[in-house]
């Protein structure tokens, strides 16, 4: 087991979304991979610089589809089993497997399954809930939900080297650069 690096990483603070994207592009080109941006609004242009996100593009929609099939299919199976197998009730000789009357609950349960799966997958991918995170140690990080844009390079990045990375961040002319303690 390797020793834990002394800090979680380094963050640079910017004053606009455009500067954050430009900085992420420079660091990504320099070979940094464990970088992340933090912003008060969604910054879609940051997506290309997030490692592994391109491969997971379809994960959320597919999870929603799986949830719909699982709960909708399970719901349909339950209706057929309870109404036609476990407790068959002959009403005027009508078919026991009366599929049209099983559709409303099936469709609606499918939508429920998709919605719950989408939200749970979103939580899992974002690792929420996560009450503690080293970034909250930065005294100004609370501005990430207000008027500041942050770029973080994690010390887990193979290229990370405290002094060199700090210089690379300072070259981007941020408002400030700070070390994030654990």
């Amino acid at each position, binding site marked *: 087991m390797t020793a834990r690096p002394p800090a979680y990483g380094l963050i640079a603070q910017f004053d606009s979304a455009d500067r954050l994207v430009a900085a992420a592009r420079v660091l990504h080109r320099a070979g940094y991979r464990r970088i992340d941006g933090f912003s008060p609004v969604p910054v879609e242009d940051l*997506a290309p610089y997030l490692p592994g996100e391109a491969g997971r593009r379809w994960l959320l*929609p597919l999870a929603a589809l799986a949830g719909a099939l699982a709960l909708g299919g399970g719901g349909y199976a339950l209706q057929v089993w309870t109404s036609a197998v476990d407790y068959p009730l002959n009403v005027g000789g009508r078919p026991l497997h009366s599929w049209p009357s099983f559709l409303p609950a099936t469709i609606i349960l499918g939508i429920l399954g998709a*919605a719950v799966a989408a939200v749970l997958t979103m939580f899992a991918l974002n690792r929420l809930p996560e*009450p503690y995170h080293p970034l909250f140690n930065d005294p100004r990080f609370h*501005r990430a939900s207000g008027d500041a844009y942050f770029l973080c390079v994690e010390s887990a990045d193979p290229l990370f080297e405290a002094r060199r990375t700090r210089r690379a961040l300072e070259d981007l002319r941020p408002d400030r650069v700070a070390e994030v303690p654990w």
Partner: protein
Amino acid sequence: MAALPHHEAGAIVLEQRFGWRWAAGFAAALGGVLVLAVACAGLFVWGVGVWGTNVPYVWAFDIINYVWWIGIANAASLLAAALVLRGARWRTSINRFAEAAALFAVLCAGLFPILHLGRPWLFHWVFPYPATFEVWPQFRSPLVWDFFAILTHIVVTALFWYVGLIPDLAALRDRARTRRGQVVFGALALGWRGSARHWLNHQKAYRILAALVVPLVVFMQSTVSFEFAVTVVPDWHRARFAPYFVVSGLLSGLAMVLVVALLVRTLLGLHELVTRRHIDIIAKLLLANAVVMAWSYGFEGFVAWQAGEHAWHSALEKVTGPFAPLTWGAMLGTVGAAQALWFARVRRSAPALIAVGVLVNAGVWLDRLVIVVGGLYRDHLPSSWGTYGPTWWEAGLLAGTIGLFCALMLLFVRFVPAISMFETHAEHGGPGVRPGVRP
């Protein structure tokens, strides 16, 4: 700083500058909740005998109120979801409270199917669990379909609302000055950091939820109509009931969102966020819907004329019989009141719009009454012809749920940003983003 629109939306929650007007409104709403509690208690103690319902009128206020509230909920959800999917630039100030109105309306609606059961404490019997008496729910019954529909609606609307709220809860956590605010908002924000990865997945999940809400409300509203359509009552047994319920529900939901938008704007002073243009667009949507509604009424008459003696007799009774004032009231309220919206002067006047919104909602409520009660007035058998009059207990349920809805709305505007802070920041331009350019 406080001049920025999205700061204003957060400051309302954090600074709590609510005066006597909020307190007075909340006290009145709590009075309504008390009425609801009494009406429910009376029902639980003495049973459905306290209502005016009796054969042939097995359904009355219970189902009228249910259909009315669920229509409001569905339409408000549909509006919010359509706004998110369209990416409409003016959506940001409307969708949050449209979602809230939908959630609270569905909570009000969900009470009624339980209350109308006769033995409401056994409502869990509609859930398929392996009970010791080894009987399963009857899945061919609309009551069971409805259980799943309401449950799904509550869960999906709550998720849609909460997922959209998470970034704003994090912003409130970061801005809260009090320890209590930091802890409460911090816990609710789940540790949101605004990371690019967070945003990417969040926006995807939010749009998926919006895309799911659209079919959900259409299916749900149709399921509500099946409660009537699968019976053999001449006035109810109609395939066109599903689209009719969607259209008329949309009308009441739009009217409700319009009224809520005007009240939120005036009472919270959000004139820069909920602009005249927003109000104008909702008013025009309402008008367009009223035109479709007029067509539906015409179509209803045409179908009844074509469908044979029973249906025609039943339809004629509706417009000339003892329910005629209610039928004409429903038409005047829904289609008639909305015609005032052709005039730009009406669309610019808050009191006039609130009056139209209330009239439309009253009209849709009467429309439900005419369907539920009026539909049973002329059944196939003359022996089941009778009349119906509500009791105070039933009126109490209606007044009580209106009170509950208002109380929840008042709590919502006080403790949750009524307008999406991060979306307003992105759309109107705030620190670091140019207005209208989504970064």
